[in-house]
């Protein structure tokens, strides 16, 4: 596992560097033109963010009820990555929207939900850092509540009309675009996996350090 880390990271970096070439060869979209190509990173980042949030939620639930410390490590790593990819989504989205819709931001379903989800992820990180004793459990409860909240967030936001492209865009992508999309998606998923592994490793080292301190005190 550890030996594979470096070559995989190099691969991810190479793929990411090569991605613009792939994207440039993809078909032009008729109504939005060049700026639509932001989608190739924006949409997969959104997918990664959601996936990371789910990982965090599941790990937090495991930690809260099974008290498994490994689950806690996964939870905090996934939360950091949710915040990171959420930030990517929230920055690349408006950059696309400015050109495509004429405005930087619109308060409707998916945008607001991404924003709220990102705020909760950052809140989780704040709790872990500044929460004091018992903050790991509180963070876990927060993540579990967030996961339970998702359908309600989605429902309540969705009752307004939306400008955001529907999720049906991805399965119905034209063949000329499909390759570029899945290449970018694969790159980002690979990057996510690698960052998650690195972060969990850091957390494991921290736990080991704490054990060493405790052993020294005895």
């Amino acid at each position: 596992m550890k030996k594979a880390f470096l070559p995989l990271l190099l691969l991810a970096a190479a793929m990411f560097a090569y991605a613009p070439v792939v994207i440039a060869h993809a078909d032009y979209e008729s109504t939005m033109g060049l700026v639509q190509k932001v989608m190739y990173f924006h949409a997969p980042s959104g997918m990664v963010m959601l996936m990371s949030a789910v990982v965090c939620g599941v790990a937090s639930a495991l930690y809260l009820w099974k008290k498994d410390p490994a689950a806690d490590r996964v939870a905090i790593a996934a939360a950091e990555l949710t915040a990171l990819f959420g930030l990517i989504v929230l920055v690349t989205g408006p950059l696309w929207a400015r050109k495509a819709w004429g405005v930087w931001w619109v308060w409707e379903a998916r945008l607001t939900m991404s924003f709220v989800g990102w705020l909760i992820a950052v809140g989780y990180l704040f709790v872990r850092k500044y929460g004091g004793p018992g903050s790991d459990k509180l963070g876990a409860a927060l993540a579990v509540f967030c996961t339970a909240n998702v359908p309600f967030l989605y429902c309540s936001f969705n009752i307004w009309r939306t400008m955001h492209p529907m999720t049906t865009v991805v399965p119905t992508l034209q063949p000329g675009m499909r390759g570029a999309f899945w290449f970018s998606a694969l790159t980002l998923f690979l990057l996510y996996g690698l960052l998650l592994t690195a972060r969990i490793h850091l957390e494991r080292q921290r736990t080991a350090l704490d054990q060493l301190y405790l052993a020294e005190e005895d």
Partner: protein
Amino acid sequence: MMRRLLLVVWLLAGAVAPVLAFQPPAAQSEYVPVKDLPPVDQLPAAPLLVAAYSFIWLAAMFYLWTIWRRLGKVEAEMRALEQRRSHSNR
């Protein structure tokens, strides 16, 4: 060990990627069929696209760097603890 690996990768990525990324994409400066022309707009799209791509690069690299830095601190502390323990054992 992990730290050094991360450092090497980070430097490589930072050096190689912009070179590859900012080469002019071949297909675009050639013909674009009339029906594919984007609607005329005051805003040029290319800077936005470039900004989005660069942001992702910067964000990922920054995050990797923070992991590397934190890992460095933890491993330094572990080494210090080990040294203290070996000293006290003598």
